[in-house]
């Protein structure tokens, strides 16, 4: 759609269309071609999302630094939602089945992706993982991304919401230091809040202010998976997202992370193709 109406044009790329795309003295030729360097990934992500939507599985991508409590959050969530919503988990780590084992120990299906050296999950890895899960038996699928505040933010997996954890041991200025990641959040969870009394230097207000400076109006929640404080608010958020998602599905629509729907407006006008004769390249 963007390539038709021109809404993908920004101040940063509009000049590429000028002079107009027609065959001129330089030998340039207009072509309509899919581009965007992430198009290969994004195409697979759209297929994944359609597959999840066909089964009505709300899919949440959990991102954070290593050790901020993603797996502990999942364990707490699974315990609370037992009997209410059917959960599945895809775990991403460089090595080991440890996290998937922790999830399976609670009776929930989990598939572990070990990426070897890759620092993020991408849509193709998720495609393979979806084959390993019985989606018809799930209401919510969590994807626990590789612990990393950089690369995972750039890859649409076909999921519906991004949740980013910031543990109180990491420092409250993380959103300012990693703007690409925190801008991608649909919810910021400040985790390990039971440790706050020992960490007076961490100010949840300052963390939230850093997030707002990224022009993000998304909710923030405070939570401790260990003590259980704040878990009810998180469950309430999840339930509301699931209700909203089901309503969208009834209207034959889907849900995309805030940053993806924004990104679609900006990506990819067709590249200008020009030609050079072989002789002039010597």
């Amino acid at each position, binding site marked *: 759609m963007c390539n038709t109406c021109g809404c993908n044009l*920004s*101040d*940063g*790329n509009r000049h*590429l269309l000028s002079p107009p795309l027609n*065959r001129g*003295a330089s*030998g340039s030729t207009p*072509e309509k*071609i*899919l*581009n*965007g*360097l*992430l*198009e*290969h*990934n994004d195409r697979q992500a759209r297929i994944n999302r359609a597959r999840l939507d066909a089964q009505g599985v709300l899919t949440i991508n959990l991102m954070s630094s290593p050790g901020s409590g993603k797996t502990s959050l999942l364990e707490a969530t699974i315990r609370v939602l037992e009997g209410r919503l059917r959960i599945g988990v895809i775990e991403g780590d460089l090595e080991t089945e440890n996290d998937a084992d922790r999830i399976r120990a609670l009776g929930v299906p989990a598939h572990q992706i070990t990426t070897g050296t*890759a*620092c*993020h999950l*991408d849509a193709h890895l998720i495609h393979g993982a979806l084959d390993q899960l019985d989606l018809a038996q799930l209401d919510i699928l969590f994807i626990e991304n590789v612990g990393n505040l*950089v*690369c995972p*933010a*750039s*890859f649409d997996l076909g999921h519906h919401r991004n949740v980013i954890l910031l543990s109180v041991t990491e420092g409250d200025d993380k*959103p*300012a*230091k990693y*703007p*690409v990641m925190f*801008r991608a959040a649909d919810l910021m969870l400040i985790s390990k809040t039971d440790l706050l009394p020992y960490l007076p230097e961490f100010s949840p207000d300052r963390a939230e202010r*850093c997030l*707002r*400076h*990224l*022009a*993000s*109006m998304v909710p923030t929640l405070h939570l401790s998976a260990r003590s259980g404080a704040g878990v009810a608010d998180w469950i309430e958020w999840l339930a509301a997202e699931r209700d909203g998602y089901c309503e969208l599905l009834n209207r034959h629509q889907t849900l995309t992370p805030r940053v993806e729907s*924004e*990104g679609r407006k*900006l*990506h*990819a*006008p067709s*590249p*200008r*193709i*020009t*030609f*050079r*004769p*072989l002789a002039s*390249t010597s």
Partner: protein
Amino acid sequence: MHELSLCQNLIDQLTDLTNTHHAVAVARVEVQVGVLSGVEAQLLQSAFTLARAGTVADAAELITEVTTPRVSCRWCGAESDTPPNNLCCLACDSFDTQLIRGHELILARVELVKNEPLTL
């Protein structure tokens, strides 16, 4: 370090373009990289040098144009050029802004080499 996998996708696209246009090679590639795209232009350059070896882009030059954030304020309507970690409106300080530049990752121009005289 996902710049290398991005470059491999880029090479795939360049190979397709070369075939579609019956060209023999890629001479020049221009990519726009927003500072909020999550991709580092310098790393993209070094990854491209690795990824292009033995492909149609073997001798291609990669030009990266880095774009900086620009926001449009939903509150007062002003547009501002901002740092990547403070996207508030410079006119009214509102954080209800929309990013209109700075997170793009775009294959902007490609110059292909043709083994035939150009018909202009």
